[in-house]
């Protein structure tokens, strides 16, 4: 199972990368994309949207099923990865390169509530 140690994770299978400018990038984990199978449709939040931690932010749909993507943190959306609209399969090809959206976090303290790779690994192993 591919779980990079430089990222943070949520119990709902999102990954979080803290960028140099203080923004965070959010995607779904390799485990999540594998469970879903071939992705065929992705709906992304528009820039400017205010999200609360745990709020539904995006939808990823595979041939098999639809899944909500939750915002790992509170903050405002500053960018979405528009290329995924036409090429959702990029998430299957490399889940950690294919970020879905970026957030300017309202409070860096919320980062402490995220899981590290070891903790996320345990959740995947227990599932």
């Amino acid at each position, binding site marked *: 199972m591919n779980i990079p140690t430089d990222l943070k994770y949520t119990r709902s299978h999102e990954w979080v990368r803290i960028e140099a400018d203080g923004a965070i990038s959010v995607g779904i984990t390799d485990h999540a994309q594998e469970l879903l*199978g071939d992705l065929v*449709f992705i709906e992304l939040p528009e820039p400017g949207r205010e999200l609360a931690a745990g709020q539904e932010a995006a939808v990823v749909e595979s*041939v*098999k099923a639809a899944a909500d993507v939750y915002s790992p943190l509170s903050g405002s959306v500053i960018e979405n990865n528009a290329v995924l609209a036409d090429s959702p399969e990029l998430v299957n090809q490399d889940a950690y390169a294919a970020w879905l959206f970026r957030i300017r976090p309202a409070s860096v303290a919320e980062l402490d509530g995220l899981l590290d790779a070891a903790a996320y690994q345990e959740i995947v192993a227990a599932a």
Partner: protein
Amino acid sequence: MQKTVLNEEHRRSGARMVDFAGWEMPLHYGSQIEEHHAVRRDAGMFDVSHMCAVDVAGDDARAFLRRLLANNVDRLQLPGKALYSTMLNEAGGVIDDLIVYHLGEEDFRIVINAATAANDLRWMTARRDEWGLAVTISARREGADALAMIAVQGPQARQKVWQALPECQPASAALQPFFAATVGEHLIARTGYTGEDGYEITLPAAQAVRLWQRLAEAGARPCGLGARDTLRLEAGMNLYGQDMDESVSPLDAGLAWTVDLAAPRDFVGKAALLAKPQQHRFLGLLLLDRGVLRAHQRVDSAHGPGEITSGSFSPTLQQSIALARLPLPAAVGDVVQVSVRDRPLAARVVKPCFVRNGSILV
């Protein structure tokens, strides 16, 4: 969970296994979309051994099926001919859909769905006993008599089968669609569930691994239930349990063409169908907006509400398609609204056959 004889082969090929009606079956072997394209463009193979082959034989076999099935088994006169039919309950609901192969004058083989097999066999046995007919009903799924089934589908499927089973080429090359030939212990049928040419091969379970391996060597790509579902949806073929079940009349599931109400013979469910004619039209939907249609989504049309019974993303069309039960006045060309995740999306009503032999028809 039950396993087919090909279970180890699937695992060796990296299949993602899932529970399908109590059977551990391959969902895909990596990418169900690539498997789908392999069938449309070249050749794919499916383990369908979870489906149940049932031999129906004896002096009254034809009389039994004439009364048991909604389609007319008297359409089977030539040896090897196959017939698609539903089996109905007294209320006219669909107990199962199936294919009957005519093997000999009073010798038929029926292939029924995995999820319904036990119930079907109870029903068939009870009807035989009730009608007092001389018929043996033998499920061929266990013991020394067990059969396996492999479907090989796609424009190159027949060539790959001949490469894997050269001894079967003469008899199978001559087959018209919906005919089958017996070659030794193999029954080779030019039938399928994908909208492509190909064969469905029934053989003794003990020989299935060898055939699977030879087909793989010939270049048939292993395909899972995921691709099987998107292929049959594009072909506009019904899936039991989703597009129809015991509460649905075949007339409301687009299956009127398989119900013979004209002949004088009586069959189970006939009176109910005559008393309650068609209530819905069963048509295709092509999503015009971005998103994915799914079963049970509500459809709003100018003529009233309807419901999607099967929906997915079509790898061939690169957009979402569905089968839906719509109000009777609904017609091809109508634009309807579908509630997709609480949002109304526009879809166009089309004939339910989206793709056939590699070509897009809508």
